[in-house]
């Protein structure tokens, strides 16, 4: 085994591990699988937002049906996540529309649907709360304090205040949620479209009261996740498992699109208020931010979303005196949860539109303002994290400004229906604070006759996990990429590598794999795999997460190193305003991202292009219309994601500024691209003279917004 520069895989566009299966129709997604004797399941949901269940009338003959409610849960009736507050099946109380109450299964899909329509439930209704400002239940409150805020405001010449609003967003993976639960060996095996096999594993253990070895979770090929398949699959898997447990038969539960939109988690909507002290020359002296997120009816991952949100709330800017207060509260809407970016898109939208407003207020160039305040290596963030050499805020800003010809275009477009806007942003890779230490993720590498096999719970959901991990291992071992296999994410075979979320799969899990490969290489000591196996029988190397020395975090005071590393990004977006309808059409995006190292440039670019397109939807099109706590536009004709005709040209530039503790210098890339486009688009609209401060920036909102000269 010898590594040569020529054979290296990292940095090259090697073929995706599952690439051919995905273009030939051979890839098996959960609904493509069937099992002998399999039943189909459906979920009967509440039709009210708050109240108590009084009676359930089935309305159909039970023969051939498996019917389950909360009394059929063998263990604890909860979806085990951060808190055990969310029942898997409602008991008496209902806290949101579409809350699961009853489960039905039958071998014939059509009879099942017919039966579903005949179930009637009587409720005693209560008054729901939809306005988070009026909520009486706070899931989590976080306060970040740096320096002396009063002193910072005293140093300011001007104080700029503003309130910014962001709406719900649906992940809209094209493959709807689905699982199959199979009772076997006295336990249960779940196959499913999911991001985090071990989240589901734990939830099922608690729900069914089973030991570790009686629960097995296998990820099937997954048609997109974007966070939407982070925590919610625990719920669906629980439902399928309850039905399978009761019927002793395999049960498939696949949502249809409407159900998926109405019932599952979305990006948290929020209100973010800024009050910033700044000197005449544009130096930030004090930043005070108040973040309010609507968590919906149950906690899900809301505290962690809030945490990432508040830590990113200043944007990538230095300031000595900062106070950030965040709250996420309960309302009677379906719970909100993980969605790519995880709180950071919301707060950085506010930060970057606010930055633009500061420049407008001071009458100075907004690029200059950002340059002046952008983080440099050695600066400290709001939590007191000292930034390392891989801090690239200035570099991405300058690169994006020059590549897009931002200043000349801004001048040229003045007075026309064209606008151009910019946003500078950052995104922490990996779990927040002490999260990675608590997770203690593991990865294994197994020697095979022809090379090595990766054993991780990280899932391939379109982003290229298998490929990128295999590249890291191949180069570290010094063997060809093709000699590295990747085992299925099956809890019976792979260790708990933590969830596939938080831009951690490359930087954190990839690093553990790199360490496995280094040890395997030492252990082989130059012997071939065959020789080693003939001699010793087998070789499996397992490593656990071990953070860089000196990382410190205090969860009580929110002080310390929030993330191992940050990625850095700058988007410049050009838009055209339809002079009649005031509809905004984005025409060109210049995206510059510094991600440490692009392990696979095509995959990395794909993440940036795709994340950008999702954010274009977030900024302009995607609005969840909630009517009495129900999503009223739960179809693809009225929840509007961008089509080929709505997506702008996207010019992606990747910069590499290696992070010393990332594999081959890599940091995270999955989430960051969704942070920048919304504020860049709104800032482009502002350059047309319209004072928009909320998204989606629909023409109705633009029409209602005051003109900039009036609102100054």
């Amino acid at each position, binding site marked *: 085994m010898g590594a040569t520069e020529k054979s290296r895989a990292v*940095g090259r*566009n090697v*073929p*995706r591990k*599952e*690439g*051919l*299966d*995905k*273009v*030939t*129709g*051979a890839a*098996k*997604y959960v*609904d493509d699988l069937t099992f002998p004797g399999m039943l189909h399941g459906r979920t009967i949901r509440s039709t009210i937002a708050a109240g108590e269940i009084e009676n359930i009338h089935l*309305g159909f*003959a039970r*023969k051939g049906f498996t019917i389950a409610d909360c009394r059929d849960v063998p263990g604890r009736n909860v979806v085990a996540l951060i808190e055990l507050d969310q029942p898997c099946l409602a008991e008496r109380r209902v806290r949101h529309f579409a809350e699961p109450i009853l489960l039905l299964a039958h071998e014939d899909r*059509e*009879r099942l649907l017919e*039966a579903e329509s*005949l179930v009637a439930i009587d409720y005693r209704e209560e008054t729901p709360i939809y306005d988070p400002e009026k909520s009486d239940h706070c899931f989590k409150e976080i306060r970040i304090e740096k320096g002396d805020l009063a002193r910072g405001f005293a140093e300011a010449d001007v104080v700029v205040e503003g309130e910014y609003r962001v709406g719900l967003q649906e992940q*809209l993976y*094209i*493959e*709807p949620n689905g699982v199959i639960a199979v009772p076997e060996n006295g336990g249960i095996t779940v196959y499913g479209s999911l991001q985090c096999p071990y989240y589901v594993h734990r939830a099922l253990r608690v729900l069914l009261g089973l030991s570790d070895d009686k629960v097995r979770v296998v990820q099937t*090929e997954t048609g*997109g996740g*974007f966070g939407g398949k982070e925590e919610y699959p625990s719920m669906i898997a629980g439902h399928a498992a309850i039905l399978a447990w009761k019927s002793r038969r395999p049960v498939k539960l696949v949502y*249809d*699109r409407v159900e998926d939109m109405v019932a599952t988690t979305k990006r948290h909507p929020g209100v973010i208020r800024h009050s910033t002290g700044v000197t005449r020359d544009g130096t930030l002296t004090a930043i005070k931010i108040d973040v309010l997120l609507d968590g919906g009816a149950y906690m899900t991952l809301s505290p962690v979303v809030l945490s990432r949100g508040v830590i990113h709330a200043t944007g990538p800017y230095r300031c000595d005196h900062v106070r950030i207060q965040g709250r996420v509260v309960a309302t009677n809407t379906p719970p909100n949860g993980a969605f790519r970016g995880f709180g950071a898109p919301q707060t950085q939208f506010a930060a970057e539109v606010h930055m633009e407003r500061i420049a407008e207020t001071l009458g100075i160039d907004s690029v200059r303002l950002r340059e002046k305040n952008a983080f440099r*290596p050695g600066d400290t963030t709001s939590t007191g994290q000292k930034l390392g050499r*891989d801090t*690239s805020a200035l*570099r991405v800003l300058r690169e994006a400004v020059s590549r897009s010809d931002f200043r000349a275009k801004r001048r040229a477009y003045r007075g026309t229906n064209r606008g151009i806007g910019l946003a500078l942003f950052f995104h922490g890779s990996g779990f927040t604070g002490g999260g990675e230490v608590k997770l203690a993720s593991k990865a294994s590498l197994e020697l095979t006759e022809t090379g090595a096999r990766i054993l991780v719970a990280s899932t391939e959901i379109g*982003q290229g996990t298998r490929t990128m991990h295999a590249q890291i291992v191949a180069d570290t071992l010094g063997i060809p990429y093709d000699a590295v296999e990747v085992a299925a994410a099956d809890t019976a075979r792979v260790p708990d590598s933590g969830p596939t979320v938080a831009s951690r799969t490359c930087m954190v899990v990839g690093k553990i794999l790199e360490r496995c490969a280094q040890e395997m290489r030492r252990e082989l000591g130059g012997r071939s795999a065959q020789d080693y196996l003939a001699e010793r029988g087998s070789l499996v190397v397992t490593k656990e997460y071990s953070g860089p020395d000196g990382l410190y975090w205090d969860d009580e005071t929110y002080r310390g190193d929030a993330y191992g590393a940050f990625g850095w990004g700058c988007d410049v977006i050009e838009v055209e305003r339809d002079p009649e309808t005031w509809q905004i059409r984005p025409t060109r995006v210049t995206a510059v991202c510094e991600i440490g190292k*692009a392990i696979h*440039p*095509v995959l990395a*670019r*794909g993440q940036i*292009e*795709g994340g*950008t*397109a*999702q954010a274009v939807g977030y900024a302009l099109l995607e609005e969840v219309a909630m009517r009495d706590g129900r999503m009223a536009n739960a*179809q*693809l*004709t009225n929840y509007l*994601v961008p*089509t*080929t005709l709505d*997506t702008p040209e*996207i*010019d992606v530039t*990747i*910069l*590499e*500024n290696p992070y010393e503790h990332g594999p081959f210098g890599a940091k995270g890339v999955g989430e960051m691209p969704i942070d920048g486009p919304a504020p860049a688009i709104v800032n482009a609209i502002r350059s047309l003279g319209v004072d928009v401060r909320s998204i989606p920036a629909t023409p109705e909102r633009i029409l209602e917004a005051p003109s900039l000269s009036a609102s100054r």
Partner: protein
Amino acid sequence: METFPDILPAEPTRVHVGFQVNGESVEVAFAPHKTLLEVLREDLALTGTKHGCELGECGTCAVLVDGRPVLSCLYLGLECAGRRVETVEGMAPAAGLHPLQKAFADLGAAQCGYCTPGILLTAKALLDANASPTLDEIKEALAGNLCRCTGYIKIFEAVELAAAWTRGEDAEPRKETLYGTDYDESGLLPVVNR
């Protein structure tokens, strides 16, 4: 407990329908209200055709009937009688891949892969009718196929590349498609702050 009559008759009447799937004649028996999507997936075990909304609002289930892309979720199976149906499973020649399949794999135009079969077939119909589509024509032809992963950029590039291959040109993926405009010959990207 109240009692109710069983609400549905036992087995619904089945129809026998003969049509061509991926070049082979098949005869299938199924209930008359089944859609082509359901017949392909459930009666012919051709699961390469996916469903995204089942209401004609996403394009995921697109297949070709007599060479034209249609939404199999809204197309009755029995309407296929005597017609020619092509699914993703039939795209590749006996050996190798269809140029579109190869281009999609090479350029990263399939990320999660779930919308891919419908997009491949829709693009195939486009290239069958128009060997040199412009970017606007590609966008227009694929306007009914939603993709949430790629932002469509790599899909457009893959269709352009496959079109060039189909025309017999010895085309290669553009370097900037693969590495961006800062690509240099070593395949390395610019490193900052070193």
